[in-house]
């Protein structure tokens, strides 16, 4: 499903070049639950951005469901993000003026999917938030916001869900609830990639990729 081959990313900072990612190669199969771990500055955010098609690699290849991502233009990238990738962010990133339901409809609207409201409601039910459909983000608790964000991520039935420190802004109990939601989604067949520096969160996954200094330094099953 995901094939990453000698992926590299160099940022131009003024006159200096910063190699944020060097020669990273791995594969992820459909239905896997993978954690990417590493200290800050290890390149895991860069890798996340590349996997999420928010950015293009400087070198190497990235295949997502038989698409050669590095060959795409901006419009095609937007379409891949819309149809095949769901993002879950540390700070939820819901639109503050829209209701939960409207937030979840948004990817469907950009994807021109018919009956967006009905599908969005189903996604809300999946994360147990159907009764909060008409609430705005500031009327929801942190855990509810993150669940709404998860509903938005999965509403277009993406190939993968990318979660960047999804419990970083939550207390540990709520964080556990979110991880339970992830676990359930994974058991239902969703491919999950979670970026975190928290070993407990990474512990929920079934495979851990360890990053350091822009390189993949190890891979192991959680302890």
């Amino acid at each position: 499903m995901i094939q990453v081959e000698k992926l590299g990313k160099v940022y131009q900072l003024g006159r200096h070049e910063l190699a944020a990612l060097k020669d990273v190669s791995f594969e992820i199969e459909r239905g896997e639950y993978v954690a990417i771990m590493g200290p800050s500055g290890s390149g895991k955010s860069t890798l996340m951005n590349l996997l999420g098609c928010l950015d293009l690699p400087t070198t190497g290849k990235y295949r997502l469901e038989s698409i050669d991502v590095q060959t795409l233009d901006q419009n095609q990238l937007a379409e891949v993000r819309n149809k095949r990738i769901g993002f879950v962010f540390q700070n939820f990133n819901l639109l503050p003026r829209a209701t939960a339901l409207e937030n979840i409809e948004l990817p469907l609207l950009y994807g021109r999917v018919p009956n967006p409201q009905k599908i969005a409601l189903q996604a809300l039910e999946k994360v147990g938030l159907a009764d909060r459909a008409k609430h705005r983000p500031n009327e929801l608790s942190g855990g509810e916001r993150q669940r709404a964000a998860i509903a938005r991520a999965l509403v277009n039935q993406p190939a993968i869900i990318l979660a960047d420190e999804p419990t970083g802004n939550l207390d540990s109990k709520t964080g556990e609830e979110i991880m339970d939601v992830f676990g359930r989604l994974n058991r239902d067949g969703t491919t999950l990639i979670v970026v975190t520096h928290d070993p407990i969160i990474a512990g929920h996954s079934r495979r851990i990729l360890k990053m350091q200094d822009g390189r993949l330094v190890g891979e192991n099953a959680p302890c």
Partner: protein
Amino acid sequence: MLIWDLFKMAMRSLLANKLRTFLTALGIIIGVASVISMISIGEGARQQTLSTIAKFGTNIITVKPGQKKNRHVRSGKVETLTLDDAYAINEHIRRITGVAAQVYQSKQLKYGNKNSNSLVRGVGPAYARLANFKIDHGRFFSEQEVKSFRKVAVVGATVVKNLFQGADPVGKTIKVEGNNYVVIGTTEPKGALSWFDPDDQIFVPVSTAQKRIFGMDHVEAIDVQARNIEEIDAIKKDVKQLIRARHNIPLGKENDFFVQNSSEWLNSWGDAAKTFTYLLGGIAAISLMVGGIGIMNIMLVSVTERTREIGIRKAIGAKRKEILQQFLIESVFISFLGGGIGIGLGIIISKTVSKIGGWDTIVSFQTILLAFCFSVAIGVFFGFYPANKAAKLNPIEALRYE
């Protein structure tokens, strides 16, 4: 993403900042309102002037002493045009239906203990018909009365009002420069122009006026009525030839007279009034422009404020085009709103001006359409840069923006 969804989103963000939206639209409101009211006032003035001028007839050719260069009349004391020239035109030029020479000056009129300072116009008998003066009571004077220097007068409506307090003056005697004149008729009122009241004058036989009132031998104008408007140019040519011959002007020398027709005069007047209208409209358009800059300013602020929102939208699949459209819809809607309110306000202003100032104003459909299209174009033009800035944001940086 359908346009309707984008429209709903734009509405939501505009409604979230109602005051800001209104203040931004205010620039356009003022701009559109001033464009509409200025143009309608200018147009009103133009139409009013033209229609009053048109009352004096459009198939009249006027011969005047002096020279004409590119519409600018250069006239010193030229006294070459005579009553005989008028008779010659009447005799020799074909395709005309009337000729009337005229002399005029303001003089003091007296009736009993009433005074008035009015224009005394010495004219031929055809003048009433040529200048569209209709006889109200009595009659106009005849060719015979002109030939015999009779002291008769036909008076205008304003004179009737001022000297006779509205009573029928026919048969009464008025004094002009100390001489008695018998009133033989009155003319129907024509209505005053702002600078001239055609009803505040009396008509006397041109010969009488020359000899007994003004003491002059020449005439100040000869009006020639064309049989129809299409023949005006040919008649003008003939008249020029005739007068040149009569005045013994050698080949290659300039005329000591000039010939113009009223439609020409009408056109140059219309042109001047049009320039005035454009000037007013142009000044108003500048304020519309300033309103557009206001939109751009606010949209730039809005894009910066909503950087994160743009990042989110891009992350979940919004294309550049869709971000561009969303922001463009916002700026166009603001100018649309401003345009709509501005049109209403502009109409109210011009109606108020015509009520208070007693001045006709004309709000034409074209003016409204022009102002509206212009304001929407301004929304697109000044909204494009901010919208494009939003569309080009890098999603990663936008998502990281605090």
